[in-house]
């Protein structure tokens, strides 16, 4: 039904797709596997019409097609359900399903006809209980997923692409998702299914295509019978050479962070670990394993039960209200959350650099000093000379290019922006740095520099807690590794005792080694 041959997609600095083949038959569930950065997202964006391939051909039911836009792709019968559902929360279920192709005459919508048609589609999906007039914002994540699928069906899609549809779902909801997928395939619809969870792929998938470094390394493997071993070895052994700095020779210092029994319902439970001065501790796990949420909770940006102790001093999680509930009235008056964490010597380089860390319009200097303004001020009056001198020193120390601290930070490359975020936390005597995907969107050359900077920080006696979805990065950079799966720590050990293969096995198959 769908045949893609030799698809190439080039972005500035990277060849995201370097000759990908994909072959999907009507009525099958075709799984797409590959590590982060292997090219899965780019491939489905090509299919959805969001990217145009530089080379290669796409054939749909024997005819050459080249979807030029998402609207085009939908017209061809290709619907994509993204990880973050793209529903309009304020509109009703029916309005969402038929968004863009409403039941209308002369611009007046026919609500009754829309609701009837929506009900039909929902019933076909086995969910007649979702009422078409309900506002989507009130639905559960699982129900939203159903609405997304109903939207795909309302376009008479013959090929539905699902990008990690189970990441946001609870266990029984996944079973229901699978039931819907089976019904769709029974009607001849083809499904391209992306997931990192091998057990799901074994249960729902028919055939598997594996991507690595933008190339197809295996086409049409039987989903049920191919040994895990084989699949994982196809995905690993990446060609990209990572250059990691040598680990510290001396043993780590005293304990900087102690986390005990940290629990946030729905995200993670019973997480305990420590970070010592000069040590890099890595958290490995999939999206949805709770890795970023644990960082947020340690930082005080997310409410969680349990204990976070920084340098021997407890940072009580939760805001003033929780403190009052505990009967700790003095605690309620103290600044809680992030403000307190920062004052006590923590720093966070968040996952979404642009959305969560940077003031894009402002200069590199202003971005660097943002976390430590009081240090550059007397009675609120900024000492701009000292601020600039300090920023210049850091720009040179971290080799942020171009070496102009007055440049707006948005004109810098991803790697240099990330260095600016790290530079922010080099000021003011930090004791613990939390790094969430520090090399996302950073090209290969700049990565090695960032690794060296991060190791250099640890060598200065700072404790580092690192989250990365790239297993080789965690193994190469960290001293100690915690492997997370569905909100729990399933393995803890020395990074040197682990290899990529074993870690992938653990996070995908759930077997603690």
């Amino acid at each position: 039904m769908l045949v893609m041959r030799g698809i190439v997609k080039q972005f500035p600095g990277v060849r995201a797709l370097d000759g990908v083949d994909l072959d999907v038959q009507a009525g099958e569930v075709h799984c797409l596997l590959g590590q982060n950065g292997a090219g899965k997202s780019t491939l489905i964006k090509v299919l959805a019409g969001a990217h145009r391939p530089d080379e290669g051909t796409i054939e749909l039911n024997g005819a050459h097609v080249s979807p030029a836009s998402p609207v085009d792709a939908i017209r061809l019968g290709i619907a994509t359900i993204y990880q973050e559902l793209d529903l309009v929360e304020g509109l009703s279920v029916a309005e969402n399903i038929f968004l863009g192709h409403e039941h209308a005459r002369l611009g007046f919508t026919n609500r009754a006809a829309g609701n009837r048609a929506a009900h039909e589609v929902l019933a076909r999906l086995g969910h007649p209980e979702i009422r078409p007039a309900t506002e989507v914002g009130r639905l559960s994540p699982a129900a939203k997923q159903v609405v997304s699928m109903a939207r795909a069906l309302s376009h008479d899609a013959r090929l539905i692409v699902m990008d990690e549809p189970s990441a946001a779902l609870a266990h029984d909801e996944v079973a229901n998702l699978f039931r819907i997928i089976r019904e769709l395939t029974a009607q001849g619809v083809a499904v391209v299914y992306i997931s990192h969870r091998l057990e799901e792929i074994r249960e729902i998938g028919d055939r598997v295509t594996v991507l690595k470094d933008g190339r197809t390394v295996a086409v049409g493997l039987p989903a049920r019978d191919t040994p895990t071993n084989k699949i994982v070895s196809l995905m690993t052994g990446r060609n990209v050479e990572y250059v990691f700095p040598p680990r510290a020779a001396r043993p780590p210092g005293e304990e900087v962070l102690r986390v005990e029994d940290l629990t946030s319902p729905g995200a993670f439970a019973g997480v305990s670990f420590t970070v010592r001065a000069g040590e890099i501790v890595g958290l490995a796990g999939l999206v949805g394993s709770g890795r970023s949420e644990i960082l947020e909770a340690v930082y005080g940006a997310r409410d969680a039960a349990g204990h976070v102790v920084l340098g021997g001093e407890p940072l009580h999680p939760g805001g003033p209200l929780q403190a009052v509930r505990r009967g700790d009235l003095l605690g309620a008056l103290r600044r809680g959350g992030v403000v307190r964490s920062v004052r006590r010597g923590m720093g966070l380089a968040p996952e979404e650099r642009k959305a969560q860390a940077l003031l894009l319009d402002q200069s590199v200097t202003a971005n660097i000093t943002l976390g430590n303004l009081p240090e550059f001020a007397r009675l609120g009056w900024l000492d701009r000379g000292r601020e600039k001198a300090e920023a210049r020193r850091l720009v040179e120390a971290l080799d942020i290019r171009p070496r102009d601290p007055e440049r707006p930070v948005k004109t810098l490359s991803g790697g240099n922006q990330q260095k600016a975020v790290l530079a922010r936390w080099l000021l003011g005597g930090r004791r613990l740095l939390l790094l969430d995907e520090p090399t996302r969107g950073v090209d290969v050359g700049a990565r090695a520099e960032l690794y060296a900077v991060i190791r250099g920080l640890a060598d200065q006696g700072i404790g580092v807690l690192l989250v990365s979805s790239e297993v080789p990065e965690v193994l190469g950079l960290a001293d100690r590794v915690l492997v997370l799966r569905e909100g729990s720590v399933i393995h803890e050990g020395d990074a040197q005792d682990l290899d990529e293969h074993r870690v992938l096995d653990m996070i995908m198959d759930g077997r603690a080694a």
Partner: protein
Amino acid sequence: MTDTGNTSAVVAGPGALRRFGDMRHLGLLVALALLVLVGLVTRPDNFATASNLVSILSLAATIGVITVGATFVIIGGGIDLSVGAIMALASVWATTVATQEFGPFVMAVCAILVGTGAGLVNGLLIAYGRLVPFIATLAMLVAARGLAQRMSDRKTQLIQTGNSAIVELSTTRVLGIPLLVYIFALVVVLGWVLLNRTTFGRRTYAVGGNPEAARLAGIDVRRHTMLLYALSGLCCGIAAILIMARTTTGSSTHGDLYELDAIAAVIIGGTLLTGGRGTIIGSILGLLIFTLITNLFILNGLNTSDQLIAKGLIIVVAVLLQRRNLKERAP
């Protein structure tokens, strides 16, 4: 010593240009110059007189002080619709018989405290009560005016002769310019310093430009938001003193629609309504353009309705020009 290379325009073009204020101010200055030219041509005998210039500045002073506060709020990502009403309430409270007994100094302090207090209520509702700024300050607009009407019984309250020190702010002149214009200038200078030279100003840009990044950098975003509205209220209190001086009264009808003029001046001045970007100087230039238009229409005996139409057009044109400007500078 660190800056010498950048400030010399010959050596480093881009640095000097940035320093000059993003070129945007240049556009505003040109617009202002054009309006002055129109004034000189159409009214050669009346426009460039000392008395006309003084009346323009006196007119601009009251809204000008409010505009400084509004600039902070809008750069901080908010909006304050209640400025005119808060000023009216402050003027009424300061001119009640009970307050006037304590003399002019207490009256002035009273106006400032009432303004700051009302701003603080706005700030608490928005920062800690999680109300949308538009709604919280709309409620304050209605309620403050109502309270002002109640206190004054809808009557205009005259400043008693014993308290004429307040009125003297507008009648006493230094170098031919009334004192209240100096107060306006002082507020502008202080506002500029606060925005450009202090941690408070830096945080204002951060909170408005990317609240999430500000929060994760350890800035207490809520407390800062609250302080921004308190600051706006403080400016309304000062504006109340100026309007009492100019009109010799306190009244619940003072400052009607001032919020629109203040917001318009800020927007024309190049501050983004989405926050994170803007300047005090731009706002003041925007305000002077607005005031100058009013003055030109009056001098030429033109219809006030046409004047409103012209102002509406200017807002649209200014924003369209700035958008083009933004696009050009985007990477």
